[in-house]
């Protein structure tokens, strides 16, 4: 049987790429490769994972330089083709800078780098990355960011609500000042998801939680459904 192929992008300054790589191996065990930021072909991959870190030292703005890396043209192409794209933390910042997801991430309102587990509400359990969760379920996943304060203007916020593009909200305390407690959003088609919390750091009880593991099983479900349908059709 054909195996699903994951790409974990690596930019200069990425530092959650190893966690992401091992999370794929440990949760779904499908094929996964590191792909350097200079790559110009992602056609072999079914899912593109953009990991956290401080790409290009966060110079100018988080993600502002990474979005022009050669591989990003391929990420745009993959997103347009309906492939699965997930950006976590700095990866989320890169996807918003690239215009693949709406909004922007600005400095936490506390000005503090917040690094601790948070409870998230799964607001949309129909995306490619959340189909293994129950709608409205609360999950525990760590955050680790200084600039995770999600901003969109009122008009965009109502559009996100209308299209069901809010994927995760912080339950209880809002750790960074994000508009409407938003922790993660998706594209209109739902194949591109971005979030500040780190599901790849919550894939085993040894890590304090394994609630993040189902993000990976979700995307495998989504891929199998699509793949199976293609064979059947």
């Amino acid at each position: 049987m054909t195996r699903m192929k994951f790409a974990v992008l690596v930019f200069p300054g990425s530092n959650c790429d190893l966690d992401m790589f091992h999370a794929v191996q440990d949760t779904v065990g499908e094929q996964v490769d590191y792909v350097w930021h200079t790559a110009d072909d992602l056609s072999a991959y079914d899912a593109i994972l953009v990991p956290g870190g401080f790409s290009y030292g966060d110079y100018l703005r988080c993600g502002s330089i990474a979005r022009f890396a050669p591989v990003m043209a391929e990420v745009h192409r993959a997103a347009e083709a309906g492939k699965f794209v997930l950006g976590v933390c700095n990866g989320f910042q890169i996807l918003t800078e690239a215009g693949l997801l709406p909004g922007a991430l600005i400095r936490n309102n506390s000005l503090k780098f917040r690094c601790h587990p948070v409870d998230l509400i799964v607001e949309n359990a129909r995306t490619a990355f959340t189909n293994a969760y129950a709608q409205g379920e609360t999950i525990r996943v760590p955050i680790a960011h200084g600039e995770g304060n999600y901003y969109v203007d009122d008009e965009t916020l109502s559009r996100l609500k209308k299209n069901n593009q809010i994927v995760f909200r912080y339950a209880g305390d809002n750790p960074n000042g994000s508009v409407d407690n938003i922790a993660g959003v998706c594209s209109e088609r739902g194949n591109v998801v971005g979030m500040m919390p780190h599901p790849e750091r919550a894939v085993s009880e040894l890590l304090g939680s394994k609630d993040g593991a189902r993000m990976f099983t979700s995307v495998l479900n989504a891929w199998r459904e699509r793949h199976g349908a293609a064979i059947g059709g």
Partner: protein
Amino acid sequence: MKAKVYVTIKENVLDPQGNAVQGALHTLGFGEVSKVRIGKFMEIELEAADRAQAEERLRSMCEKLLANTVVEDYRFELEVS
């Protein structure tokens, strides 16, 4: 030519750094400060045939990279030597 580019946080977007600096100024006895907004200032040297071309190129630089227009505004001044 030399350009001075100013990137500022949009009026309706919260500026946590500005608020913290305002608080610090109050602590230091500068109670008259009612608002602080922090932005970026960049000096850019560039070649261009004329002012109009330089302005057009700078606008494009700001839109593409120097500012994130979701949360920031920009303006620039051009010194033609």
